[in-house]
């Protein structure tokens, strides 16, 4: 192993401490002068100082005991809960929980004091004389190495592993296959993706329901400059699968002057300047929530992808890779806004099967 690397050895520096030995004839100024003599601390030579240190250590331990009693007292005295009466004003922290503050401080002090006492004890009263321990090479001696190899060869020979190829090969095969069972067992962790990511709850004729009021909306409810969040009709917060449904179906509605809409298709997919876009960012799926009224830009607060809603949801800044999908809307006979179908593209982040 070492001989393969033929160019390395000769360029290694001399072994460490080489200038400690032979060179010393010249009076090597850099030679190791050896461990300097131990210097005594005050507490080593002055019994009064040592006694004082002992008292200091004991004071720390006593403080710890007092703090532990304080902890138990705080636990009994103060009430938990967020109400103002359970808080205390401490500058500059503001109103903080009495219980949390007192428990934390007393616990902290009771622990810190033990540590401080122990460290002070070690630094002042325990011997600080340095000792020298020898290191021993980690590598085994050549004899041991030879013995191990001989033992191994002996064992290998006795097993017949190298000679009986049939046993060896079938064993390797069996060992390689047996983990497959474990892999197979993980199959039922979840369903296959199939086309699940391609569609949402939106369908032709589903009315747009205001997320806040839970009422269907008319175009006149959407004013210029506002950002309104909506969900498909029939989707309720109490539904079993509400979270999964809304994770894809959440939309936002904006209204702009028809003249401001740069993208013709986009304008046609809206209704009288009311445009409906997916709320789910096409980067990694955060809900978009920041709307700039003047420019009709929306910004995802997670990674700052910026989309231009007046231009078909085009990405104008940030890490998102494709435009926000737009939902084609119109009004039904009663004048309520409704979807004309599902999104034409999968909503949310990109994935391999997305075309």
């Amino acid at each position, binding site marked *: 192993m070492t001989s393969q690397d033929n160019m*390395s050895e000769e360029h290694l520096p001399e072994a460490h401490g080489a*200038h400690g030995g032979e060179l010393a004839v010249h009076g090597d100024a850099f030679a190791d002068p050896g461990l300097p003599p131990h210097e005594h601390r005050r507490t080593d030579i002055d019994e009064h100082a040592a006694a004082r240190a002992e008292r200091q250590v004991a004071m720390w331990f006593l403080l710890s005991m007092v703090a532990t009693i304080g902890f138990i007292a705080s636990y009994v005295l103060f009430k938990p809960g967020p109400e103002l009466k359970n808080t205390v004003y401490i500058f500059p922290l503001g109103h903080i929980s009495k219980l949390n503050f007192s428990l*934390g401080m007393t616990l902290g002090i009771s622990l810190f004091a033990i540590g401080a006492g122990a460290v002070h004890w070690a630094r002042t009263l325990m011997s600080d004389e340095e*000792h020298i321990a020898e290191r021993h090479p980690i590598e085994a001696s050549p004899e041991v190495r030879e013995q191990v190899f001989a033992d191994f060869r002996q064992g290998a020979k006795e097993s017949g592993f190298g000679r009986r190829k049939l046993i060896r090969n079938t064993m390797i095969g069996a060992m390689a296959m047996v983990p497959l069972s474990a892999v197979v067992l993980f199959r039922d962790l979840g369903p296959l993706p199939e086309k699940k990511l391609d569609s949402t709850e939106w369908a032709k004729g589903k009315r747009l329901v205001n997320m806040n009021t839970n009422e269907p909306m008319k175009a006149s409810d959407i004013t210029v400059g506002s950002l309104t969040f909506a969900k498909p009709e029939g989707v309720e917060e109490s539904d079993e699968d509400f979270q999964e449904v809304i994770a894809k179906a*959440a939309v936002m509605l904006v209204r702009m002057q028809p003249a401001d809409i740069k993208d013709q298709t986009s304008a046609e997919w809206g209704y009288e300047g009311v445009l409906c876009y997916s709320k789910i960012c096409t980067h990694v799926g955060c809900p978009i929530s920041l709307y700039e009224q003047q420019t009709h830009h929306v910004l995802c607060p997670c990674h700052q992808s910026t989309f231009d809603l007046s231009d078909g949801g085009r990405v104008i800044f940030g890490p998102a890779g494709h435009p926000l999908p737009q939902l084609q809307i119109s009004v039904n006979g009663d004048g309520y806004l409704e979807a004309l179908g599902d999104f034409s593209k999968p909503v949310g982040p990109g994935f391999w099967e997305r075309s």
Partner: protein
Amino acid sequence: MTTHAEPTAVGDHDDHQVGHSEAGVDQAHLGEKAADWVDGRLGIYGLAKANLRKIFPDHWSFMLGEICLYSFIIIILTGVYLTLFFTPSMGEVVYHGSYTPLNGIRMSEAYKSTLDISFDVRGGLLIRQIHHWAAIVFVAAMLVHMMRVFFTGAFRKPREINWLFGFLLLFLGMFDGFMGYSLPDDLLSGTGIRFMEGAILSMPIVGTYIAMFLYGGQFPGNDIIPRFYTIHVLLIPGIMLGLLVAHLILVFYHKHTQFAGPGRTEKNVIGMPLMPVYMAKAGGFFFLVFGVIAMVSAIASVNPIWAYGPYRPDQVSTDAQPDWYMGFSEGLIRIMPGWEIRAFGHTLVLGVFIPLMIFGLVMIVIAAYPFLEGWITGDKREHHILDRPRNAPMRTAFGVAWIAEYGILLVAGGNDLFATHFNLSINTITWACRILFFVGPVIAFTITKRWCIGLQRRDRDKVLHGRETGTIKRLPHGEFIEVHEQLSPEALHTITAHEQFQPMELPAEVDENGVKRKVSLLTKTRARLSQSYFGEAAQIPKPTPEEHAEITSGHGHH
């Protein structure tokens, strides 16, 4: 101590009377008997002989690893307490508890039980905050501890495997932290889990499958919190505990490294014994760390989940930031342009997938470095004396470049905060970070390398011309000089104790018979790297004793 010499038959101890009369001896005798009992069954004396008075060297930076160990213990202690109250379920309930602003709101049981821990269990909030603060300290301490090991070259043979153990602990610690703060199922952490879905979806071919399997269906499903819970409290901590024990066993087995100094060689270790000094100091330090974290948790709120509200996939708060140790991955994802390749009915989401790969690369580089340096130097010897960072300029520069990259990504991960707090354009910050991503490490590398070489030059001056005393002397002819004072023999030895490698040279292009030699690309790369590590531009030749003798022997003295 009484001697207990004769190895008489076991069981003889009862009538083994030692005729002492002083107080305390009986007690000591009892202790000895108990120890004998244990030794007879476990054979502890061999272990104790080697370790009770084991010598550890002293240096402040050796405490960093201790902080990791202690914060890990604190996390386990507080974590066990939290499991007694936490419900890892995504089943929905309507809240009617003591935190009135959320009354009547639908939320998962995970979120509700976290609210209960915070507001109804006395001390629950404190333990939660200690758990979270300790996790923050844990990862930070691991990173800084790793820097200490890196910059002093403590990862060299025989400690490369322990470096890998440490790396794995850092890696697992980060992810366990991420899973931990995801468990309460609040609006902020849910956004993090959604981000994870997007990142997984970006993986070519397998992305959608992994996402479906991980979440048990479509995002968010009902499985991710209970699954994270098992991984967070059992699987990863279990692996980490094993790695930690192995890490510590190796520290004991290799014996600790030490800095160069008088009396210190590659063959010894100089310091103070485990019993009593380090039992008291290290044991005490556990209480200091725990105490400080408890006091921080008493006054500084961390992850106030009640302020974020329960998770809803269609809602988000601004300032969505992960915990600090995930910040660099957040930065990667934020500065990446939104590249997507669409062809043949498929999408390759490079805008997310490339950051995911770079994230892995940033981590792998740490793990691989010791092996890279070992390959360049070709050094197969054991190293127990630590390097001063200046004496390994390329390594130090590489490490600082890595930190610079990490720091830039951390800033990029909080670009919205920088924008709002400093009133800057978010686009400008993002663009600055994009450029700095490439330029920053190069600048950091160059500055650090030059800095190291400057310090080497200064060391050389100090060795040859002594220390500047600040005392100005006027010579008879009017000239002012500053008096230089020779360094002490201890200082001289310490500064010159490091070794300097010679760069590897390629063999001549043609051999002695005029035949063109074949030199593999790998060898050429290695020679070039070796040249950049140890060539003239990378180190100042350290003074020789002869140079020193010549200058100090009379004439050169000023």
